[in-house]
């Protein structure tokens, strides 16, 4: 049994404009100690889906199931969720400045996290642990900086603080929602390195949400490609980069510039994401898909296995390519499987 099993998760919001179906029948597994990357354009439901699992989505209609260590999280009581959040599932977010409370020192915020779940820990012990954690994520002079406020740290250092806090209780799962998007390039690489080191040390599973296929190539074991609230394709990293089946995934990969070129956020495919208010019975990608044919406009494709690799599924009506194999030499994790330069040079921020 996987650490986290998400099945048929749907999340919709009632708005004055209509019902926004932000997530539609999402399913994936996260294995212990492994990294699952979730990629997709802005608005594809990456944040909403993960926040729903931890009960942070408010005012939404939710259906489906999310089994964490075999326990259902969707619809769990507030007190159950409180025990899971922080202690078993740590979370870090995109903007580390706004994600830390501006009025409290970083030490206070980490100590609060520890003592919320381990009430028997003395203030002194929690503080010592906080300083240790700050050192672990690479903050120099951690025992002094523990009394500084978030605004006294640089962006990268703040994100390290967030990581230290999220990892304070050695959670089984870390959900990192675009942890490096707000950071500049050299800092991105360092922060990812910190995450990877901690993951190895604590054997933590990670859900890594990102726009950046370079980050996926460096960090992930498995990849989920999301579009309009559903999974378009799901595969182990190497399979996805080499044998992608879905035209949407191919579009994303094609948008990666050649080695040495500038790496930008994903705006690769002509057209805009569909309105989430209109759930018509067709492939959600059809209006933008270069390979779309009749059937795509009338029937929604299921997520089915598409190659020898049973882990490889795609939601697309194109013929399943079961002839492919993994015979090519494939670089190890952290290497460069496609023409992606894993040590990023420049990053265009569209934010």
């Amino acid at each position, binding site marked *: 049994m996987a650490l986290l099993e998400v099945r048929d998760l749907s999340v919709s919001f009632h708005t004055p404009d209509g019902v926004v179906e932000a997530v539609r029948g999402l399913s994936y597994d996260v294995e212990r100690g492994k990294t699952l990357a979730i990629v997709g354009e802005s608005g594809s439901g990456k944040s909403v889906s993960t926040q729903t699992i*931890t009960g*942070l989505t408010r005012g939404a209609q939710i259906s489906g199931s999310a089994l964490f260590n075999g326990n259902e999280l969707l619809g769990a009581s507030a007190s159950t969720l409180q025990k899971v959040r922080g202690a078993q599932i740590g979370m870090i977010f995109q903007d580390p400045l706004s*994600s*830390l*409370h501006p*009025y409290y020192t970083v030490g206070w915020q980490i100590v609060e996290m520890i003592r919320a779940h381990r009430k028997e820990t003395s203030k002194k012990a929690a503080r010592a642990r906080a300083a240790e954690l700050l050192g672990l994520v690479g903050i120099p002079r951690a025992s002094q900086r523990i009394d500084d406020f978030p*605004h006294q740290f640089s962006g990268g250092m703040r994100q390290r603080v967030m990581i230290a806090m999220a990892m304070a209780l050695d959670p089984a799962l870390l959900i990192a929602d675009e942890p490096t998007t707000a950071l500049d390039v050299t800092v991105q690489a360092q922060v990812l390195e910190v995450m990877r080191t901690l993951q190895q040390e604590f054997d933590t599973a990670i859900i890594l949400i990102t726009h950046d296929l370079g980050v996926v190539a460096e960090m992930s074991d498995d990849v989920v490609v999301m579009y309009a609230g559903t999974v378009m394709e799901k595969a182990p990293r190497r399979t996805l980069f080499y044998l992608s089946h879905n035209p949407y995934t191919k579009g994303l990969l094609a948008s990666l510039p050649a080695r040495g070129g500038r790496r930008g956020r994903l705006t690769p495919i002509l057209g805009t994401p569909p309105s989430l208010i209109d759930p018509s019975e067709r492939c959600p990608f059809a209006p933008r898909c270069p390979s779309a044919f009749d059937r795509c406009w009338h029937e929604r494709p299921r997520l089915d296995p598409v190659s020898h690799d049973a882990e490889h599924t795609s939601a697309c009506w194109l013929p399943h390519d079961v002839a492919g194999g993994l015979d090519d030499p494939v670089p190890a994790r952290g290497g460069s499987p496609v023409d992606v330069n894993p040590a990023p040079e420049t990053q265009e921020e569209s934010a």
Partner: protein
Amino acid sequence: MLRFLVRRIVLGILVMWLITLAVFALFFIAPNDVARTLAGRQATPETVALIAHRLGLDQPIWKQYVDFVSRLLHGDLGYDYYHQTPVTQIIGAAIPITLSVVIGGAIIWLVMGVFNGVVSAVRPRSFIDRSLTVFSLFFYSMPTFLLGLLLLYFFYFRLTLRGITIFPAGGYAPLGEGPGQWVLHMVLPWFTLALVSAATYTRLTRASMLDVLGEDYVRTARSKGLSERRVVMRHAFRAAMTPIVTQFGIDVGALIGGVVVTEYVFSLPGLGKTAIDAINLQDLPVIIGIVLFASAAVVVANIVVDLFYAVLDPRVRLH
């Protein structure tokens, strides 16, 4: 932090100095016969002459101003010929009364407003949110004198008719003569003042809380597995307090100069009532004294607010 404090105080002193200039220009230079006006309507010519001499009206204007300011610095607000008492004594008697009304009322409206605002913000658009909105707008839209009279009618007049007298019809009982009577005399004025202002604080708190509850750091607090109560109070409310404290300081500072309507309705001889009475009598020294005191209260309140701001927000504190 220290530099910030010094800058604020210097600015405050500058403002006070400008106010003395304005007061001096308005009351000493503008009227033709200052001594006559100051002496009051029934003064004899000898009194007028004496005042003219005492004020040094034969001196050049700059000298008169310097003397005026130096008297102020010595805590001398002048002499009230109408009541035959120093102005400081008149104002000194009125201040505790106004302070009693303002501080008590302010605490009540702050507690009510903040409590209602937080409750509304935690459950926006719920039944309780809407009820509290209606409740506070009802009192908000009511003129203070009407609310005061209604409270008097129900809690004094109607009760007394039934032979139950809890609250007096008005007037003041000094705190020094026992807190019981003081409170009984103050309850109705307090609620008159508080109910009208509470609405502002309910709306302000609600808006500020809703703002903050949408912040990323509140989401972080939830993601840490804190109880909802702790998320709301320690994380959201802590940050939402800043605009409330600012408004509170400014409001209290302004009211310390006199709560005119409430004091009148409940016959409380505080600064507001004293000022109105002095205006009716054209009792200039008292008017000047109250204007200066009220301005000083506003200036000091602003400095206190800024200090509080720095205490609340470390980002201000450290720059």
